């Protein structure tokens, strides 16, 4: 972790803790209860179908190819968090660990 981020230790720790628990909610329990959102209910009633476009994302639906869904979910989360914070560091002009 770069020096710039050291004063954000508490929110960063919270983010990592939430990520560690995320597969319980995002994968295990979601599968058990058959997670679906109101949007899915409405789309089904309208007969809307998702387009079958070529996959553009490296980690579709928060999975990492070849890894179990739970592990992939955490790794996906870490990638997303890292990308967002990297953008913040770049915009801050302090991205070189100062």
């Amino acid at each position: 972790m770069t020096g710039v981020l050291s004063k954000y230790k508490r929110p960063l720790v919270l983010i990592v803790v939430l990520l560690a628990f995320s597969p319980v909610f995002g994968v295990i329990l979601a599968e058990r209860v058959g997670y679906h959102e109101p949007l899915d209910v409405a789309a089904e009633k309208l007969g809307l179908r998702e387009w079958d476009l070529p996959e553009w994302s490296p980690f579709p639906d928060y999975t990492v190819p070849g890894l179990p869904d739970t592990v992939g979910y955490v790794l996906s989360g870490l990638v997303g968090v890292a990308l967002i914070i990297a953008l913040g560091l770049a915009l801050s002009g302090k991205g070189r660990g100062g």
Partner: protein
Amino acid sequence: MHIPDGFLDPTWIIATYAVTLGYLALTWRRASELIKGDRAITVSIFAAGIFVAQMLNWPLPGGTSLHFVGGALAGIVFGPVVGFYVMFIVLAVQTLVFHDGGLTTFGANVLNMAIIDVLAGYYAYRLVVGIAGNSRRSRLLGSFLGGWLGIVLAGLAAGVEIGLSPSFPYGVTVSVPVMVSWHALLGIIEGLATAFIVDYLYGKGGLAAWGGRL
């Protein structure tokens, strides 16, 4: 709430992209003044927190579920301009890296979750605190109502967008009641979470250290 490719009529794809690009153009200058230095890091960590919170689905057995969205929270904490960029970044990463939400529907998802949810949360909170005074009770009430209203209005917008198309004009009479009623119910959880987080952050001495607006 993330609309996938295939759910929107071309008219809506163009209209929602136009609104989103217009909002970007309108807010760009102000945002570039606000999001720099330490504040850029603060904003990005907040956005990362919302990104992770959205991964925590609420498992409601046998029923329709949802996950935290956070647009109202971002609006209350950072105001409508920076709050928009917080949600825009989250949605862009979700769409591009994780295929959560479509490319043709990105404009609509930004409109619903980064514009409507953020503005609803911000103004509901400001209205309640403006009328009732800046007490803990009014902050809790304002942020609860903001979180709830933001989700309901974002759901309403999504319902209109997927249901109202020239090729299928009566779909909206199906999609809007479904979206509004479910989100009015599930939005209670979003409202409670928003109120809890705002209260926590306020208890930490306001958001001056975050560069926010509380």
